[in-house]
């Protein structure tokens, strides 16, 4: 009379279990639908394009039905890199402030602005970016950068405001809450004993953080950054509104450019042919695959930290 599957004690239980299983499998169905439909819509692309060709070419020609994703890949990566460079130090500093330096009650209150930042819709950020950040960049920041750092190719060219720098900065604000919330969670799981041991050795608060908290949470913080990166890659509206929507590759941060989500947003509704739609869906597949891998990696890192330090090579 061994219990292999406890819980199915009568008909009601069996029905309930059945419904639960269906609902659970639905998640897998949704995942399958996403991949399947993306592939289906992208299929016409495969006729004349190879994967390698698609990724490495820059020519995007709806008239001739010849498409290459390189320009958009470049734009997406550049804006994401800027946003990570700006957001990560601030996010880590903020997380440390909330969990280590601020008294507990204050720390709880301080997470509210972070949550508010996360709640603002993307299109509102885009609006703010377009009418506030872009003029500010055009009139103050970019001329200043061009004047003092113009010898670096990054800061050359006319300061139009729109472009990679604007998108990167707004993205930084948008991914900040993501990185902070995961980092705070991870830092909170650092056993108090580690920190107390460091303090008992005579370390200052900051040194205790460097000795106990950071090494323990390091993998989790990397995970948080990966999640932020995933968000940056996939962000559409704010970027579309400030990047300039110009399909060109340029070394300068001041230049206008284009990103994967932006071109999909701008062209999908009026795409002219099946191959055009297929190319846009192909871009979507690239986005999906990239964010999938980033999220999976992030999850592995974050759960490894939460399970305990023995699994993570310090």
């Amino acid at each position, binding site marked *: *009379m061994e219990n*292999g*599957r406890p819980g199915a004690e009568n008909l009601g239980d069996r029905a309930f279990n059945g419904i639960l299983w269906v609902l659970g499998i639905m998640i897998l169905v949704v995942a399958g639908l996403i991949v399947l439909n993306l592939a289906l819509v992208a299929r016409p692309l495969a006729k004349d394009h190879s994967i390698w060709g698609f990724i490495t070419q820059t020519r995007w020609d709806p008239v001739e039905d010849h498409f290459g994703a390189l320009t958009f890949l470049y734009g997406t990566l550049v804006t994401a890199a800027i946003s990570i460079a700006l957001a990560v130090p601030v996010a880590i500093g903020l997380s440390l402030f909330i969990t280590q330096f601020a008294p507990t009650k204050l720390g709880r209150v301080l997470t509210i602005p972070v949550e508010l930042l996360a709640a603002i819709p993307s299109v509102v950020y885009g609006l703010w970016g377009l009418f506030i950040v872009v003029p500010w960049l055009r009139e103050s920041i970019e001329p200043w950068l061009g004047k003092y750092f113009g010898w670096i190719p990054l800061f050359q060219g006319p300061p139009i405001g729109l472009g990679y720098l604007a998108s990167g900065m707004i993205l930084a604000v948008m991914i900040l809450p993501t990185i902070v919330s995961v980092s705070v969670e991870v830092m909170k799981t650092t056993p108090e004993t580690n920190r107390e041991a460091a303090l008992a050795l005579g370390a200052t608060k900051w040194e205790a953080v460097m000795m106990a908290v950071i090494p323990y949470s390091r993998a989790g913080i990397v995970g948080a950054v990966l999640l932020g990166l995933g968000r940056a890659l996939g962000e559409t509206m704010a970027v579309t509104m400030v990047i300039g929507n110009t399909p060109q590759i340029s070394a300068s941060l001041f230049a206008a450019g284009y990103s994967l989500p932006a071109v999909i947003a701008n062209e999908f509704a009026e795409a002219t042919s099946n191959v055009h739609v297929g190319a846009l869906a192909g871009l979507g597949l690239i986005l999906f695959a990239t964010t999938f891998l980033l999220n999976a990696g992030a999850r592995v890192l974050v759960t490894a930290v939460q399970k305990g330090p023995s699994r993570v090579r310090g």
Partner: protein
Amino acid sequence: MTPAAPAPAMSSEKPTPAQLAQKELAQRAPVSVNDDVPAKVEVHDLNVYFRANHAIRHVSLSVKPQTVLAVIGPSGCGKSTFIRALNRMHDLVPGARVEGKVFVDGKDLYARGIDPVLLRRRVGMVFQRPNPFPTMSIFENVAAGLTLNGIGGNHAETVERCLRQAALWDEVKDRLKHAGTSLSGGQQQRLCIARALAVEPEVLLMDEPASALDPIATAKIEELIHELKERYTIIIVTHSMQQAARVSDNTAFFYLGELIEIGQTAQIFTNPRERRTEDYVTGKFG
């Protein structure tokens, strides 16, 4: 009553648990034994396995109606595992296997065709930590066993009756709509007892019901057991021998999953038959 066998008479030595228990026994009215009444609960050769672990070994005992059986023994001896076998709670544990028979009023609970859900309304259970349902009021908590099982109607009478039986009515009668969790620990436990009584069980299993409570609340629960005994058959797990002496008619001593000895409480504490029982009640281990 015969005096205890090994009884150090020197007053400077610490009294053994058995001696403390005997003191409690001395203050109680003598227990009447009624041999012609058939047993309420009869356990035949009960074995409980958790995968490879043989947790309960060949236990047989019987409990007469309207009596209290205390189950004592050192930590890990299987006391909780034993009483959970009496209301088929192990059915819910993956990898658990129960062999043997448990008769309540002559019907084997583990027979084919017996619905474990229904039997739990005849054999109720109170747990170590009070666990009132947090989203329900006091009234709703007591009636939960009925409302959750689809038994409709006005439960006001039942709720009052059970709260009175649990000696809680006077304390809560004016705030039945308040949250179940608004009571003190001891009151919450009596609430859980009232809740268990509402489904009208015949046997009440209590798994260390007072161990999470302060001494005053504990005393109230023990008083309650005396009153409940008149209508219900009670099996109580306890780690305190004094408590066993205070509330029970019979006591069963478990060790390493086996039933070592069972008998009248007085006899167990003053004149145990088995060496291991004697060692335990005189405080040599556990």
